């Protein structure tokens, strides 16, 4: 796979590769069919900067109330050697009272270099795997291959060892109310946790141990009901693990996309950026708004060429996959002669148009059919 590495670097121009974190990797599963996004992610291009340069900045991030609430809750759960977390894990996971060892891997001897922190993470986890004690490993810095290039993974998670197996603990500030939480947020947390499980399993394998020692059961710690009291819920992330592994494998097959590109093409922030971006085919759908920084640019592009995708995937499906609004309209009012394979769709659209016109004209005449 390394032969496309130089091509990917060229695509990125001079910008350093963007640091991946579980959120960006989990977001890969949002629109795998989009070549533009697949290429930019594989090359580690900063999509946010590209979108801003094109004049379509991604909608601004998070309210500071949410940020302070999130940090406040995480701090409270991890305070005093994770006192509240230990209580939860003792209740829910049957953690033994003697298991309280806590290792902070976020800062090593004042130095925050990633190489240093990753080395320490490897050392500590290696010792834990060989039977040494150690229960809570805060902020383990992990590595994961993205499109053939190693990327550091900034985790905001705790690895927790129980009976020789590691579990990922993910702390989130959305509330679990009477046992229910917002399904989209739980799904996002599950996908992120799956990325950590995967990275941990790769590290455990590198250290010569059985990757299955990293459990697919993760613990999601959230505030309970309307209070600050944390609650922990076990989450089986096997489906998400399979999806993330699939997407990462797809990224390594990005060479098909790279070959199809005119050589010399780069996403560097220059004048020819708009043409470069437009040269790579996108697959816009409204769902992109929630997961890709380029979404507003792609929507504008899709609107400009009257693509039915702008109206949503279900509309495009109803219109038998016809891609352009104009084409669908011409089929409906009969001004466009339908080629044989579109004959049936044309028939249905014409009937639909007739029925709508008939019902509207009848209503205008004040009657009910």
């Amino acid at each position: 796979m390394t032969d496309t590495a130089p091509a990917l670097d060229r695509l990125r121009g001079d910008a350093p590769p963007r640091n991946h974190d579980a959120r960006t990797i989990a977001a890969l599963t949002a629109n795998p069919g989009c070549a533009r996004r697949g290429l930019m992610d594989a090359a580690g291009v900063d999509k946010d900067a590209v979108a801003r340069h094109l004049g379509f900045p991604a909608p601004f991030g998070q309210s500071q109330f949410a940020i302070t609430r999130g940090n406040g809750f995480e701090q409270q759960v991890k305070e005093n050697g994770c006192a509240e977390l230990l209580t939860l894990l003792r209740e829910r996971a049957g953690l033994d009272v003697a298991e309280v060892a806590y290792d902070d891997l976020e800062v090593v001897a004042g130095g925050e270099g990633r190489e240093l922190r990753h080395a320490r993470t490897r050392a500590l986890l290696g010792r834990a795997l060989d039977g040494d004690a150690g229960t809570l490993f805060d902020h383990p810095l992990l590595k994961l291959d993205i499109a053939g290039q190693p990327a550091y993974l900034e985790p905001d998670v705790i690895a927790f060892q129980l009976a020789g197996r590691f579990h990922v603990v993910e702390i989130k500030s959305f509330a679990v109310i009477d046992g229910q939480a917002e399904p989209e947020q739980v799904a996002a947390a599950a996908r992120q946790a799956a990325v950590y499980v995967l990275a941990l399993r790769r590290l455990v394998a590198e250290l010569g141990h059985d990757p299955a020692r990293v459990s697919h059961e993760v613990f999601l710690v959230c505030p309970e009901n309307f209070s600050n009291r944390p609650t922990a819920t076990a989450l089986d992330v096997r489906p998400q693990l399979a999806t993330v592994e699939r997407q990462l494998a797809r990224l390594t097959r990005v060479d098909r996309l790279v070959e199809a590109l005119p050589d010399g093409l780069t996403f560097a922030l220059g004048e020819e950026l708009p043409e470069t971006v437009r040269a790579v085919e996108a697959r816009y759908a409204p769902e992109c708004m929630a997961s890709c920084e380029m979404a507003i640019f792609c929507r504008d592009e899709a609107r400009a060429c009257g693509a039915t995708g702008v109206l949503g995937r279900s509309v495009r499906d109803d219109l038998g996959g016809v891609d352009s609004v104009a084409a669908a309209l011409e089929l409906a009012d009969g001004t466009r002669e339908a080629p044989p394979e579109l004959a049936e769709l044309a028939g249905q659209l014409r009937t639909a148009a007739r029925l709508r016109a008939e019902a509207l004209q009848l209503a205008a005449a004040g009657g009910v059919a």
Partner: protein
Amino acid sequence: MTAADALAPGDAAEAVVAAVLADLGRGHRGVIVDSPPGAGKSTLVVRATAHLAAAGDRLMIVAQTNEQVDDLIERIAAKHPHLGVGRLSAATYAPSARVLAHPQVRVAQKADDLAEQPVVIATAAKWATLTDGSWTWAIVDEAYQMRSDMLLRIAGRFDKALFVGDPGQLDPFSTVEVERWAGLTWDPMRSAVSVLLAHNPDLPVHRLPVSWRLPASAAPVVARAFYPFTGFRSGTGPGDRRLELRAGGMGTAHDRALEEAAASGWALYELPARHTLRTDAEAVRATAALAVRLLQRGPVAHSEQGSAEVGADRIAIGAAHRDQVAAIRAALGEEGAGITVDTANRLQGREYDVTVVLHPLSGRRDATAFHLEAGRLCVLTSRHRHACVVVARAGIPELLDAHPSTEPVRLGVPVKFPDGWEANQAVLAHLAEHRVAAG
């Protein structure tokens, strides 16, 4: 593989049935039997009926549809002519000929009129209208298709129950928003068996190990794709089943597909890749034409049960949507009269010699959870005793590859295996080896 695999298929199945009947006597409140497609579920129900009736217990049998009720009546009456059977029916139900053919079957609308019948059978909907009356034992057939709220309404009528069903089939669905109950162990939307096990985790669960329906060419494919953890094997060897096309073919694409299916048990009749409407006229025509052409080829099914003409009644066409079924019926015309055409939901529990299936993902531009549901494809590809011809447009692997997996996750809801994406991929990979490009 487990010790059971060393046994011959018949003995392996018999061992499980014996274990189930033994468990009925051990005081469990419930016994569950998972039965993959064609694994002898109805035979088990008939034997359990006789076993429990012989022990003198009053027995009620719950099926999901009137047709399933009549099927069971016919089997029980044939096997045990002296066993009094009561059919509890809705007012609007006119007894079918095959029910009336058995003198020992009494049909009535009120339970009291069947008081002295040792066995009373009805649909779940009918049982739910009763407010009193109790039976010691109940046998719940197709228990995985029954929704939890239906089990809640009839569970008051029995003390102990044998639950038999196929876990690989379609999940219960509803037309309204059901988010409110997600995560509850008694969520009305879960299948009856999953709620039963959520509240009684230590009930014994047996698994019928052999599919007598699926030929040796199909059992491994269906088992690997839809029953990853609870595999099963075919009751027949590779040579035991043969589909003979007596009339010669004309080498058309349809003929080559039928010949491939007859030879290997599978065929993928692949139309050119294109995005289409659901009622894709070209695919509908091809599906109907293949079924009609099959009849014209004078098919004969040779199996361990001897040889028999494959008439129209032994052929079925399956599809995902009702409007596709309507379009295929229209395309069949006179020549195809008698061929069953139905959606996956209604084909559950039924068996044919040859099936022609319009792939749910054919012509789709974007797959939805509905299209990707593993249970739907499992039902469609596990109805046949001899051969299954799948009609689909090219482009499905690319569609699956581009499918975004961002389904929501609800706390407390158990993860369902297999994942629809993996199941579709497994079936596609196998079909690719039996591909016949449309003419």
